[in-house]
């Protein structure tokens, strides 16, 4: 009996001892997928705390160059973590974790019956995309519009969101009739219950290769390493697939 109590006590102590907290900076397109991954991670890693902050990859990159206290950085564009690693700010190599897709989405029309060509319709007065200057999804949206020779025709209708979530707001509130957003956001019930989406063919733009790093400050954090490994695990990959991400080493689906 005493042995059992001591054993319980020791295991409780061990739990407390290894309980850690990490802060993860994640691109806005990961909002729904990462929330789910963190929930399943926590259920099998009791006591560990994983806090996720969502925002634009460009902003996180800027903040991290200035020493922002993040332990992991999941960027929507692998170029940002590569740059951080080059500047000696990474404690791991840059790992690709997913390839993103862009979709045409509307809250008021059935976008699943549209194509990029529909954007020239005179009934559409505003088209929201993320700011191509620093948002990866905006850059790819611009590429897709340019390679379909639509950019010049619709440029005057474009409005620019600060990041992909802000872009979705413009569409959700009806101020822009359509927008080009991340597939990972469009498949969320909150958004997919309204309107519909059209998957933009990925040969129209450079791949949205997304990558992450463990940041310098988490060099000795066991939890950061555990979480990084978890991203490659089966349950985490299943969540990413569910939200429409193509995983590294997988063939691109239509």
């Amino acid at each position, binding site marked *: 009996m005493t042995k059992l109590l001591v054993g319980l006590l020791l295991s409780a102590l061990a739990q407390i001892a290894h309980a850690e907290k990490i802060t993860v900076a994640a691109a806005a397109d990961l909002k729904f997928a990462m929330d789910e991954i963190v929930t399943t991670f926590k259920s099998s890693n009791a006591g560990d705390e994983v806090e996720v902050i969502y925002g*634009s990859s460009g902003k996180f990159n800027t903040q991290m160059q200035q020493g922002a206290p993040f332990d992991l950085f999941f960027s929507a564009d692998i170029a940002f973590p590569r740059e951080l690693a080059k500047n000696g700010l990474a404690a791991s190599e840059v790992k690709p974790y997913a390839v993103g897709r862009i979709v045409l989405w509307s809250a008021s029309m059935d976008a699943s019956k549209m194509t990029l060509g529909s954007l020239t319709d005179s009934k559409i007065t505003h088209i929201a995309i993320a700011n191509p*200057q620093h948002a990866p999804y905006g850059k790819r949206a611009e590429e897709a519009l340019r390679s379909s020779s639509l950019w010049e025709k619709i440029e005057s209708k474009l*409005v*620019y969101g*600060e990041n992909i979530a802000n872009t979705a707001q*413009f569409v959700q*509130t*009806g*101020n822009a009739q359509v927008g080009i957003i991340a597939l990972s956001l469009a498949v969320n019930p909150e958004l997919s219950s309204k309107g519909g989406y059209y998957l933009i063919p990925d040969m129209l733009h450079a791949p949205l290769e997304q990558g992450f790093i463990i940041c310098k400050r988490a060099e000795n954090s066991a939890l950061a390493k555990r979480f990084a490994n978890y991203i490659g695990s089966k349950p985490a990959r299943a969540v990413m697939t569910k939200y429409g991400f193509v995983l590294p080493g997988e063939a691109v689906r239509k």
Partner: protein
Amino acid sequence: MGLSGGDLQAIWLTVRLASVVTLILLLVGTPIAWWLARARGRWKGPVSAIVALPLVLPPSVLGFYLLLAMGPNGPVGHLTQALGIGMLPFTFWGLVVASVFYSLPFMVQPLQTAFESIGDRPLEVAATLHASPLNIFFSVAVPLALPGFLTAGILTFAHTVGEFGVVLMIGGNLPGITRVASVQIYDHVEALEYGQAHHLAAVMLIFSFLVLLVLYAWRPTPRKV
């Protein structure tokens, strides 16, 4: 000074926005401030609170409600569509409407203080000389409150120049239409164009300092606020 064409365009747009907003608020804010300065009734409290709201509300709250209200399903959106103006988000006039709310207390409060400090005497004297209320206002109150008008105008202009959160939420970041200087700086920083960010940010810093310097140098003795 190394400002790009885009930077100059953003500065010009900001100046235009701040000027229009200051003019509108002079027209809208003056009667409100006059009424607040003379009012005694039970409406004074609620109206004062509404006027002061933008001082404590985060711009994201204002931006969020404006985005909903001015959208196709919002009351303002219904109204502007019925009037044939179309919708206000992503337009210069949308920013004007938002900024009028945002800068309202910066116009009303200094004016109210100025009107209150005139006191009742000069107005009563004018009334005994059979001056009409409108005449009293323009030939007695306005000249006496002139320093207050200057302070209110300068503060409103400067505060509108400094607007950021609301324009980010409802502006759509359109060059020459809604991309004001503060947003342009934000874009430079996010794109890691620190050099360009520095140039424009320095202009804003110097401008803000000069405005405050003029205000404080020109009012050497602290009066009741």
